[in-house]
């Protein structure tokens, strides 16, 4: 009885398929041009979409969110539709185009990573009237009794709907059964997580400790709030970078809002690699500093010679630009840093050599120290730079001095 009333609320696949079929048939009758008609393949795609969409809607209804005014869109992915149908994504796209022109699909929106959203013609998905509570009890009872008393031959359904039936175990997620039946409570309910006060029997959990699992989930909950602030911080970095770069490199250019958003998107994907690389805030800050240094470097390079140029911003930060994009300045920057370090090392070693010369002549501030003391002093000073190349070069120069 319960199941019967529940199934009434849900969409019947058979009826939906017939509705889709009649829709396509009427369309084919109307269209005189052969090219505009929908063939069997288009029909199959339409049915697939209807089936999956109905499944989604039924799930939505069973979760307790009935649609009152508007249908939600059918959220899916082109590749998943293609794999369901056993064809390529291109075919799915072509079929969707055809169904759109036929009016089967009203609207389509692309959500990038999260897939596509389709709005199917409401003629096919006319919402079924929910059983009203004002129905006379007697008629209801008579319906139910007729259901049990009628001896009707059990026909197989026209459409194979076995897989679309509700899962018998679906009540496990909904948590409608009593505590004694061994249903585990939701993990992030703090009061249940304590070992001594758990609502479910501990001996039932032989495989995995629920407490450890729930810890993970609560941590994830906490992380979600910190994640938001982190993403805000990261997006701020992109904005700051653009605010720093624009007056330096593109001072004469004026950008409208859509142009600026496009450039920001390019910076996000090319300069920051869509933040796919995990790093702490301090690491990102130091990276931001190197970016500023790179921008300054490009600015200096431009100022030095008026014949030099960089491409416009939308090309300069374009992720596909392999020729003259901002990404290329990274190598340049590294090279420059290496050169700077080399020069610094050379100056430091020259200083050390000079100190040894002065020491040998009995001059300089270190003349009263022993050789070992001077060596230790210099070694300490050079160690503070943390550059092994510098230490090696120092040892070489020291050997030369000692040998001469």
């Amino acid at each position: 009885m319960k199941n019967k009333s529940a199934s009434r609320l849900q969409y019947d696949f058979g009826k939906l398929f017939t509705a889709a079929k009649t829709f396509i048939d009427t369309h084919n009758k109307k269209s005189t041009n052969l090219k505009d008609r929908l063939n069997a393949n288009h029909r199959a795609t339409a049915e697939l979409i209807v089936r999956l969409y109905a499944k989604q809607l039924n799930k939505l209804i069973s979760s307790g969110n009935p649609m009152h005014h508007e249908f939600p869109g059918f959220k899916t992915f082109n590749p998943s539709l293609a794999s369901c149908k056993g064809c390529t994504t291109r075919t799915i796209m072509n079929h969707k185009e055809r169904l759109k022109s036929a009016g089967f699909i009203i609207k389509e929106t692309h959500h990038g990573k999260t897939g596509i959203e389709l709005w199917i013609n409401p003629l096919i998905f006319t919402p079924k009237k929910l059983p009203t509570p004002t129905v006379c009890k007697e008629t209801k009872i008579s319906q139910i009794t007729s259901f049990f008393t009628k001896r009707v031959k059990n026909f197989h359904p026209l459409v194979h709907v076995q897989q679309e039936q509700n899962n018998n175990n679906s009540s496990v997620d909904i948590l409608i059964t009593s505590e004694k039946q061994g249903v585990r409570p939701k993990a992030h309910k703090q009061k249940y997580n304590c070992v001594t006060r758990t609502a479910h029997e501990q001996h039932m959990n032989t495989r995995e400790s629920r407490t450890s699992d729930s810890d993970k989930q609560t941590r994830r909950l906490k992380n979600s709030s910190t994640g938001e602030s982190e993403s805000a911080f990261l997006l701020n970095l992109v904005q700051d970078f653009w605010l720093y770069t624009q007056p330096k490199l593109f001072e004469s250019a004026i950008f409208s809002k859509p142009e600026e958003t496009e450039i920001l998107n390019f910076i996000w994907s090319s300069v920051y690699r869509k933040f796919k690389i995990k790093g702490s805030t301090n690491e990102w800050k130091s990276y931001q500093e190197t970016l500023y240094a790179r921008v300054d470097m490009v600015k200096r390079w431009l100022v030095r010679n008026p014949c030099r140029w960089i491409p416009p911003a939308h090309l300069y930060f374009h992720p596909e630009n392999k020729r003259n994009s901002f990404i290329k300045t990274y190598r340049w920057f590294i090279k420059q840093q290496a050169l700077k370090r080399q020069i610094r090392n050379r100056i430091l070693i020259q200083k050390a050599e000079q100190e040894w010369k002065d020491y040998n002549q009995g001059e300089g501030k270190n003349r009263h120290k022993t050789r070992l003391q001077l060596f230790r002093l210099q070694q300490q000073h050079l160690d503070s730079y943390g550059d092994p190349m510098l230490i090696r070069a120092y040892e070489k120069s020291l050997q030369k001095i000692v040998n001469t």
Partner: protein
Amino acid sequence: MTHPDPNTALSKCIIYFNDGNSRTFYSLDKKHKKSKPNQALGIRRLEKMLLQHFKGTWRTAIIYENCTNGKELAKYKNGVRLF
């Protein structure tokens, strides 16, 4: 050759020519037929049209959002962008 569709274009450009005429041009916001519309691309194309194709033939040109009460996105006077 594909032509921009005034109904689907995201931006439009009104050019006031030197000879007193004025004409509206609509943006072509797609790289190819199936691509996602990109308003910035459409604006850049309109700008290119103004500064290269119609160079020296107009006095004022304004790019608007192609919708009712659409905002001004860019304004040009004598070949110079004002905002």
